[in-house]
Protein backbone atom coordinates (compact mmCIF):
# COMPACT_ATOMS: atom_id res chain seq x y z
CA UNK A 1 0.00 0.00 0.00
CA UNK A 2 2.15 2.80 -1.31
CA UNK A 3 0.03 5.90 -1.53
CA UNK A 4 1.23 9.37 -2.39
CA UNK A 5 1.96 10.01 1.29
CA UNK A 6 4.45 7.13 1.32
CA UNK A 7 6.12 8.42 -1.82
CA UNK A 8 6.51 11.88 -0.28
CA UNK A 9 7.86 10.29 2.90
CA UNK A 10 10.50 8.33 0.99
CA UNK A 11 11.43 11.43 -1.01
CA UNK A 12 11.88 13.52 2.16
CA UNK A 13 13.82 10.74 3.87
CA UNK A 14 16.14 10.32 0.88
CA UNK A 15 16.67 14.10 0.73
CA UNK A 16 17.56 14.21 4.43
CA UNK A 17 20.00 11.31 4.39
CA UNK A 18 21.63 12.23 1.07
CA UNK A 19 22.20 15.81 2.26
CA UNK A 20 23.68 14.52 5.51
CA UNK A 21 26.10 12.33 3.54
CA UNK A 22 27.06 15.36 1.44
CA UNK A 23 27.69 17.36 4.63
CA UNK A 24 30.12 14.67 5.72
CA UNK A 25 31.97 14.36 2.39
CA UNK A 26 31.95 17.63 0.42
CA UNK A 27 35.37 19.34 0.34
CA UNK A 28 34.12 22.97 0.25
CA UNK A 29 32.73 24.06 3.60
CA UNK A 30 30.17 26.42 2.06
CA UNK A 31 28.74 23.54 0.02
CA UNK A 32 28.61 21.56 3.27
CA UNK A 33 26.60 24.35 4.89
CA UNK A 34 24.13 24.43 1.99
CA UNK A 35 23.75 20.64 2.17
CA UNK A 36 23.09 21.04 5.90
CA UNK A 37 20.25 23.44 5.00
CA UNK A 38 18.54 20.72 2.94
CA UNK A 39 19.12 18.17 5.70
CA UNK A 40 17.47 20.43 8.31
CA UNK A 41 14.55 21.14 5.97
CA UNK A 42 14.16 17.39 5.40
CA UNK A 43 14.05 16.75 9.15
CA UNK A 44 11.32 19.40 9.42
CA UNK A 45 9.40 17.48 6.74
CA UNK A 46 9.82 14.24 8.72
CA UNK A 47 8.37 15.96 11.81
CA UNK A 48 5.18 16.65 9.83
CA UNK A 49 4.78 12.91 9.19
CA UNK A 50 4.77 12.17 12.93
CA UNK A 51 2.17 14.87 13.70
CA UNK A 52 4.64 17.33 15.22
CA UNK A 53 3.51 20.48 13.44
CA UNK A 54 4.80 22.93 16.06
CA UNK A 55 8.17 21.20 16.07
CA UNK A 56 8.38 21.36 12.26
CA UNK A 57 7.79 25.12 12.33
CA UNK A 58 10.33 25.51 15.15
CA UNK A 59 12.84 23.46 13.19
CA UNK A 60 12.50 25.75 10.17
CA UNK A 61 12.64 28.93 12.26
CA UNK A 62 15.47 28.01 14.63
CA UNK A 63 17.64 25.63 12.62
CA UNK A 64 17.22 26.86 9.06
CA UNK A 65 16.71 30.51 9.97
CA UNK A 66 19.02 30.79 12.95
CA UNK A 67 21.66 28.14 13.45
CA UNK A 68 22.49 27.80 9.76
CA UNK A 69 22.94 31.57 9.44
CA UNK A 70 25.22 31.46 12.50
CA UNK A 71 27.26 28.67 10.91
CA UNK A 72 27.58 30.62 7.65
CA UNK A 73 28.66 33.68 9.66
CA UNK A 74 31.29 31.53 11.36
CA UNK A 75 32.50 30.27 7.97
CA UNK A 76 32.76 33.74 6.46
CA UNK A 77 34.35 35.35 9.51
CA UNK A 78 36.92 32.62 10.04
CA UNK A 79 38.26 32.18 6.51
CA UNK A 80 39.91 34.46 4.03
CA UNK A 81 38.06 34.52 0.73
CA UNK A 82 41.08 33.09 -1.07
CA UNK A 83 41.34 30.11 1.26
CA UNK A 84 37.67 29.17 1.41
CA UNK A 85 38.04 26.66 -1.41
CA UNK A 86 40.53 24.59 0.55
CA UNK A 87 39.06 25.41 3.93
CA UNK A 88 37.62 22.02 4.64
CA UNK A 89 40.00 19.32 3.42
CA UNK A 90 38.49 15.86 3.50
CA UNK A 91 40.80 13.51 5.31
CA UNK A 92 39.29 10.24 4.24
CA UNK A 93 39.77 8.01 7.16
CA UNK A 94 39.21 4.27 6.80
CA UNK A 95 38.87 3.70 10.51
CA UNK A 96 36.26 6.42 10.95
CA UNK A 97 34.29 5.29 7.88
CA UNK A 98 34.38 1.68 9.04
CA UNK A 99 33.33 2.62 12.57
CA UNK A 100 30.40 4.71 11.32
CA UNK A 101 29.22 2.05 8.86
CA UNK A 102 29.41 -0.65 11.52
CA UNK A 103 27.53 1.56 13.99
CA UNK A 104 24.87 2.26 11.36
CA UNK A 105 24.54 -1.46 10.70
CA UNK A 106 24.12 -2.29 14.38
CA UNK A 107 21.67 0.57 15.01
CA UNK A 108 19.45 -0.14 12.00
CA UNK A 109 19.49 -3.89 12.64
CA UNK A 110 18.38 -3.22 16.22
CA UNK A 111 15.70 -0.80 15.07
CA UNK A 112 14.27 -3.20 12.49
CA UNK A 113 14.47 -6.43 14.52
CA UNK A 114 13.14 -5.11 17.85
CA UNK A 115 9.41 -5.46 18.43
CA UNK A 116 8.40 -2.10 19.88
CA UNK A 117 5.00 -1.90 21.60
CA UNK A 118 3.52 0.28 18.87
CA UNK A 119 -0.01 1.35 19.65
CA UNK A 120 -2.40 0.72 16.76
CA UNK A 121 -4.19 3.53 15.00
CA UNK A 122 -2.66 6.91 14.31
CA UNK A 123 -3.96 10.33 15.18
CA UNK A 124 -2.94 13.61 13.65
CA UNK A 125 -3.96 16.51 15.85
CA UNK A 126 -2.61 20.03 16.23
CA UNK A 127 -0.06 20.04 19.04
CA UNK A 128 0.74 23.72 19.57
CA UNK A 129 -1.93 24.39 22.20
CA UNK A 130 -1.04 21.25 24.14
CA UNK A 131 2.69 22.04 24.10
CA UNK A 132 2.03 25.57 25.34
CA UNK A 133 -0.19 24.29 28.12
CA UNK A 134 2.33 21.67 29.25
CA UNK A 135 5.18 24.19 29.18
CA UNK A 136 3.26 26.41 31.56
CA UNK A 137 2.16 23.64 33.94
CA UNK A 138 4.02 20.35 34.06
CA UNK A 139 7.27 21.45 32.42
CA UNK A 140 7.45 24.92 34.00
CA UNK A 141 10.73 24.34 35.85
CA UNK A 142 12.68 23.10 32.78
CA UNK A 143 11.18 26.01 30.83
CA UNK A 144 12.50 28.56 33.32
CA UNK A 145 15.88 26.84 33.56
CA UNK A 146 16.12 26.94 29.76
CA UNK A 147 15.40 30.67 29.79
CA UNK A 148 18.18 31.27 32.34
CA UNK A 149 20.51 29.13 30.22
CA UNK A 150 19.67 31.16 27.11
CA UNK A 151 20.41 34.40 28.99
CA UNK A 152 23.75 33.01 30.20
CA UNK A 153 24.65 31.85 26.67
CA UNK A 154 23.72 35.28 25.26
CA UNK A 155 25.89 37.17 27.79
CA UNK A 156 28.72 34.66 27.45
CA UNK A 157 28.73 34.86 23.65
CA UNK A 158 28.71 38.67 23.72
CA UNK A 159 31.55 38.72 26.25
CA UNK A 160 33.64 36.16 24.34
CA UNK A 161 33.31 37.80 20.94
CA UNK A 162 34.21 41.29 22.19
CA UNK A 163 37.48 42.52 20.69
CA UNK A 164 40.57 42.44 22.90
CA UNK A 165 41.12 46.22 23.25
CA UNK A 166 37.55 46.90 24.27
CA UNK A 167 38.19 46.29 27.95
CA UNK A 168 40.87 48.93 28.28
CA UNK A 169 38.81 51.44 26.34
CA UNK A 170 35.83 51.00 28.63
CA UNK A 171 38.16 51.32 31.61
CA UNK A 172 39.51 54.56 30.18
CA UNK A 173 36.03 55.90 29.75
CA UNK A 174 35.26 55.35 33.37
CA UNK A 175 38.36 57.09 34.69
CA UNK A 176 37.53 60.79 34.09
CA UNK A 177 34.87 60.86 36.74
Amino acid at each position, binding site marked *: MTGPADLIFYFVAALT*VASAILVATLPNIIYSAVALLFSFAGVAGLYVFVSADFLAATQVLVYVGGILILILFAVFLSNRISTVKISNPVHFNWQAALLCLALFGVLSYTAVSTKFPVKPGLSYQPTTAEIGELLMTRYLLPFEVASVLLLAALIGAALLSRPEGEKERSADMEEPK
Partner: protein
Amino acid sequence: MGLDKLLVIGAALFCCGLYTILTRRNAVAVLMGVELVLNAANINFVAFSHYVSRVIGGQIFAVFVIVLAAAEAAVALAIFLRLYATTGTVEVDTADNLKG
Protein backbone atom coordinates in the same frame (compact mmCIF):
# COMPACT_ATOMS: atom_id res chain seq x y z
CA MET B 1 6.10 5.49 7.36
CA GLY B 2 6.79 3.38 10.36
CA LEU B 3 8.72 3.55 13.56
CA ASP B 4 11.56 1.38 12.24
CA LYS B 5 12.02 3.51 9.11
CA LEU B 6 12.28 6.68 11.19
CA LEU B 7 14.77 5.01 13.50
CA VAL B 8 16.89 3.95 10.52
CA ILE B 9 16.84 7.53 9.21
CA GLY B 10 17.89 8.76 12.65
CA ALA B 11 20.72 6.20 12.72
CA ALA B 12 21.91 7.34 9.28
CA LEU B 13 21.91 11.01 10.35
CA PHE B 14 23.77 10.11 13.54
CA CYS B 15 26.46 8.19 11.66
CA CYS B 16 26.92 11.00 9.12
CA GLY B 17 27.30 13.46 11.99
CA LEU B 18 29.75 11.16 13.78
CA TYR B 19 31.83 10.78 10.61
CA THR B 20 31.86 14.57 10.19
CA ILE B 21 33.00 15.08 13.78
CA LEU B 22 35.72 12.44 13.50
CA THR B 23 37.27 13.42 10.17
CA ARG B 24 36.97 17.19 9.81
CA ARG B 25 39.70 19.55 10.96
CA ASN B 26 37.71 22.76 10.55
CA ALA B 27 35.94 23.57 13.82
CA VAL B 28 32.87 24.94 12.02
CA ALA B 29 32.49 21.63 10.16
CA VAL B 30 32.74 19.78 13.48
CA LEU B 31 29.90 22.00 14.76
CA MET B 32 27.84 20.97 11.71
CA GLY B 33 28.40 17.33 12.68
CA VAL B 34 27.19 18.02 16.21
CA GLU B 35 24.02 19.61 14.83
CA LEU B 36 23.39 16.51 12.69
CA VAL B 37 23.73 14.27 15.76
CA LEU B 38 21.28 16.45 17.73
CA ASN B 39 18.79 16.25 14.85
CA ALA B 40 19.08 12.46 14.82
CA ALA B 41 18.29 12.37 18.54
CA ASN B 42 15.30 14.64 17.97
CA ILE B 43 13.90 12.37 15.27
CA ASN B 44 14.06 9.45 17.69
CA PHE B 45 12.33 11.40 20.48
CA VAL B 46 9.48 12.48 18.24
CA ALA B 47 9.10 9.09 16.56
CA PHE B 48 8.84 7.23 19.87
CA SER B 49 6.43 9.79 21.29
CA HIS B 50 4.20 9.41 18.22
CA TYR B 51 4.22 5.65 17.81
CA VAL B 52 4.80 4.18 21.26
CA SER B 53 3.92 6.44 24.16
CA ARG B 54 1.22 8.66 22.57
CA VAL B 55 2.16 11.35 25.07
CA ILE B 56 3.46 14.66 23.83
CA GLY B 57 6.41 14.72 26.23
CA GLY B 58 8.81 13.57 23.51
CA GLN B 59 8.03 16.64 21.45
CA ILE B 60 8.61 18.90 24.45
CA PHE B 61 11.97 17.24 25.03
CA ALA B 62 12.79 17.89 21.37
CA VAL B 63 11.92 21.57 21.85
CA PHE B 64 14.41 21.76 24.73
CA VAL B 65 17.06 20.05 22.58
CA ILE B 66 16.52 22.71 19.91
CA VAL B 67 16.92 25.45 22.54
CA LEU B 68 20.18 23.90 23.73
CA ALA B 69 21.43 23.57 20.15
CA ALA B 70 20.76 27.26 19.51
CA ALA B 71 22.62 28.33 22.68
CA GLU B 72 25.48 25.98 21.84
CA ALA B 73 25.80 27.34 18.30
CA ALA B 74 25.94 30.94 19.56
CA VAL B 75 28.64 30.20 22.14
CA ALA B 76 30.58 28.06 19.64
CA LEU B 77 30.58 30.91 17.11
CA ALA B 78 31.99 33.27 19.76
CA ILE B 79 34.70 30.75 20.65
CA PHE B 80 35.60 30.27 16.96
CA LEU B 81 35.96 34.02 16.46
CA ARG B 82 38.22 34.24 19.51
CA LEU B 83 40.23 31.26 18.25
CA TYR B 84 40.56 32.86 14.82
CA ALA B 85 41.73 36.13 16.37
CA THR B 86 44.32 34.26 18.46
CA THR B 87 45.71 31.69 16.03
CA GLY B 88 44.59 32.93 12.60
CA THR B 89 42.82 29.69 11.80
CA VAL B 90 39.95 27.56 13.12
CA GLU B 91 41.62 24.19 12.62
CA VAL B 92 40.96 22.17 15.77
CA ASP B 93 44.51 20.79 15.75
CA THR B 94 46.04 24.23 16.27
CA ALA B 95 44.20 24.92 19.51
CA ASP B 96 46.75 23.16 21.73
CA ASN B 97 47.97 26.03 23.89
CA LEU B 98 47.02 24.18 27.07
CA LYS B 99 49.05 21.12 26.09
CA GLY B 100 51.89 20.55 28.53
